[in-house]
């Protein structure tokens, strides 16, 4: 990579890099095999300590990269066929080391949190085995130095996501959600695999450091499909982006993420908010040069992101399940990241990914803390039975507030800096759709603040409404093992944004500078500072406006709450049923499949063809078995005779006939 000139590239094996992913792997395997039998009470010891070591090692690697080193080496050659060579290798550069620190730190804290959250669950050991296996695959994804290994991690995290969504597999809704997530991801991954094939077909290599310099070859390559000429970079970018749409739950493959909330809350926090779903953004940033080659690809990324973000924000306003609201908010924020990528500000997108991981994980874990407190209720996720929890759970109250302020973009908190950077870069983008993206972004910012604080006010203010649902149990603050991780993450949710304070506010934008060498970063040159201050004021105002609306409706005048649904019932129902996407997909894909299987397959194929074939084959088998059982003497020696007989027949064929 051209931009790596100022780095010293280490090409030999490095133990810390190897240990970072493999420690959780070993811990996971040991826990999975021996956990139930030998330490069912404390299966968390190995995964938590492995994750802690990984975290320390990633900090060490961070300092190594900061001092100007890049690790790029292959552990061994994995696949070698013709000129296809794929190794199991590692690449540690600013981009991956940043993801590394984020994944290991959050995973460690969420492991600790789960000690309290999952206590007493029959699958206690299984949970820790799966979640550290997930961490292993995520780290492999992040550390990969070629596309095939990225794909390995990609599928691996998909698998672990499946296992963890369906963790309570005896609940039908959970196992259905797991299947849905897996199947919808297949659609995206199919495109992703095609994209990898296309990269290899056109460029002849799968290593990042060889792909990037070779990209200019594709500049004027077109592929004829029918009567259309498709620009090959756009085609590859589109196929790869299909995978990103599946994994990062962008429209039209977004429907699995809200359902995935059936899994345990720490899983939602780690997998479906902080790490796995951001893999798509990570991939786009990793291959940003490819996307930048085609204007259409950039527009596709930007508009898919903007549409998803807008749609998810509107849906989140109407939902009552606390985790679903946060899930839709995740969708919306992921859309935000893609919007940033789509206007060419990849470093800023990654910055938002980084800050979002902390405050969204915090939001989820605080919600998990509330759910834990209300677990006696039939549906502890329902915000209608909450209320007034401020008194009962002060720590959760504070952490939820911090997360809410961060996501709403209140100055000083992490979300403010990253969101503001995205909006500024959208506004000053060289792409023509930048201004439009900026406008959408502002609208979404209002809605984001509104729905977050809607949940916040409903849960923590007013009177406690869940007395009947709890059968007389009082809600209580969670144990220390859960609140301490919450407090630590809330520090991250405040200060992670301070790493990248933009220059206009007197900061150094260190974060963006750090990533600039890998993903590039458009400078805001010749931009008037007053305009920038003005934009900043608008985005802050948008956040405050949303919070104010929420305060007005849910605290000051609760009567207003029913006003919206009663005035515009149709729109409300449209939003409440999630834009009817589930129903649409049901009628488009599920119903025809069922119809096809019931009528065509069941009636015609089954009765006529298959039944007769089966009965006939059974009869054939019976007669031939009666003949052949005479050969089957059960004597070991005779089996050797048969083997020898086979060899003799082959040799006769080989010598005399061929």
């Amino acid at each position, binding site marked *: 990579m051209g931009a790596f000139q100022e780095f010293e590239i280490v090409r030999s094996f490095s133990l810390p890099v190897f240990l970072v992913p493999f420690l959780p792997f070993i811990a996971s395997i040991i826990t999975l095999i021996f956990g139930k039998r030998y330490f069912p009470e404390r299966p968390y010891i190995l995964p938590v300590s492995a994750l802690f070591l990984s975290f320390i090692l990633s900090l060490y690697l961070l300092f190594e990269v900061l001092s100007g080193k890049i690790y790029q080496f292959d552990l*061994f050659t994995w696949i070698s066929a013709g000129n296809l060579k794929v190794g199991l290798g590692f690449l540690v550069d600013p981009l991956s080391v940043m993801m590394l620190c984020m994944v290991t730190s959050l995973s460690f804290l969420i492991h600790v949190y789960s000690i309290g959250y999952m206590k007493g669950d029959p699958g206690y050991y299984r949970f820790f085995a799966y979640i550290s296996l997930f961490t292993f695959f995520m780290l492999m994804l992040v550390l990969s130095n070629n596309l095939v290994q990225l794909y390995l991690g990609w599928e691996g995290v998909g698998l672990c996501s499946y296992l963890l969504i369906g963790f309570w597999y005896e609940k039908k809704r959970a196992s259905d959600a797991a299947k849905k997530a897996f199947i919808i991801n297949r659609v995206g991954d199919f495109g992703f695999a095609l994209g990898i094939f296309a990269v290899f077909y056109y460029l002849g290599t799968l290593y990042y450091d060889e792909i990037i310099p070779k990209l200019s070859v594709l500049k004027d390559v077109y592929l004829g499909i029918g009567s259309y000429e498709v620009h090959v970079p756009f085609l590859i970018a589109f196929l790869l982006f299909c995978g990103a749409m599946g994994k990062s739950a962008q429209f039209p493959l977004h429907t699995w993420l809200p359902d995935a909330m059936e899994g345990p809350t720490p899983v939602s926090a780690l997998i479906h908010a902080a790490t796995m779903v951001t893999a798509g953004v990570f991939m786009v940033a990793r291959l940003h040069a490819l996307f930048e080659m085609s204007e259409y690809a950039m527009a596709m990324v930007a508009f898919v992101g903007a549409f998803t973000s807008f749609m998810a924000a509107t849906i989140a306003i109407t939902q009552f399940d606390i985790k679903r609201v946060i899930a839709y908010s995740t969708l919306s924020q992921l859309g935000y990241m893609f919007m940033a990528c789509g206007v060419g500000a990849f470093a800023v997108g990654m910055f938002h990914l980084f800050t979002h991981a902390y405050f969204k994980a915090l939001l989820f874990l605080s919600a998990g803390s509330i759910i834990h407190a209300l677990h006696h209720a039939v549906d502890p996720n329902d915000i209608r039975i909450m209320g007034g929890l401020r008194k009962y759970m002060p720590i959760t109250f504070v952490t939820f507030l911090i997360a809410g302020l961060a996501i709403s973009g209140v100055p000083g908190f992490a979300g403010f800096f990253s969101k503001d950077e995205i909006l500024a870069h959208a506004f000053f983008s060289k792409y023509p759709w930048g201004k439009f993206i900026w406008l959408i972004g502002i609208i979404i910012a209002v809605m984001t603040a509104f729905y977050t604080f809607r949940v916040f006010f409903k849960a923590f203010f007013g009177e406690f409404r869940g007395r009947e649902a709890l059968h007389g149990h009082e809600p209580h603050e969670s144990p220390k093992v859960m609140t301490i991780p919450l407090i630590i993450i809330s520090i991250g949710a405040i200060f992670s944004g301070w790493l990248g304070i933009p220059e206009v506010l007197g900061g150094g934008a260190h974060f963006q500078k750090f990533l600039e060498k890998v993903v590039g970063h458009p400078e805001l040159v010749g931009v008037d500072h007053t305009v920038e201050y003005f934009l900043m004021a608008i985005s802050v105002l948008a956040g405050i406006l949303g919070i104010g609306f929420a305060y007005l409706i849910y605290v000051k005048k609760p009567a207003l709450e029913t006003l919206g649904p009663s005035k515009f019932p149709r729109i409300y129902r449209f939003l409440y049923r999630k834009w009817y996407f589930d129903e649409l997909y049901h009628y488009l894909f599920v119903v025809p499949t069922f119809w096809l299987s019931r009528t065509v397959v069941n009636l015609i194929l089954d009765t006529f063809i298959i039944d007769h074939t089966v009965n006939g084959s059974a009869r054939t088998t019976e007669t031939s078995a009666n003949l052949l059982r005479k050969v089957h003497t059960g004597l070991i020696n005779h089996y050797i005779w048969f083997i*020898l*007989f086979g060899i*003799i027949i082959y*040799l006769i064929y*080989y*010598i005399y006939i061929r």
Partner: protein
Amino acid sequence: MDLNHLVFYYLALGMTIPGILAVISRNPVHAVLWVLVLILHQALLLYTLGSEFLTAIQIIVYAGAVLVLFLFIVYMINLRLEERWKVFVRRSGIGLILIFIFVFLLFKTISVFLALVPAFKPKLPYDLAQASNLVWIARYLFTHYLLQFELIGVILLIVVLGAVFILKKLQEVKNDSF
């Protein structure tokens, strides 16, 4: 006929005759002991082929471990004489015919195989006079075949665990007064 040939013939006889005796002996103890003779001769043969390391391994692993294990099991089972010697002789006709056909066919194909040998391309040329080929074996084992080497270790581990597990499970079954 020089000394090399003499040594080779001696070793070949020292391997085939004990082999035949091992296969036809009635007493398993004798069979195992004949195989021991075979293996010692084979170790010498490996030495003439220029590999002292494999000679040592052959003696240590085969003679020292595997055959001792066999002897141990034979004594443990305590079945000295095979009573069914006659069965062995009576039914051998078809088997022997098959083997003769097999040998005949192999001799036919062996010329193809022999023609291949000069075409083998040495990967790392070495001179036996210069250094022990142990160096080369080690170099190969720890670089090119490292994965396979580790896998062999895993296989041996699994064997140990499997043997222990099989016999332990049996005891459990017995305790349940099966």
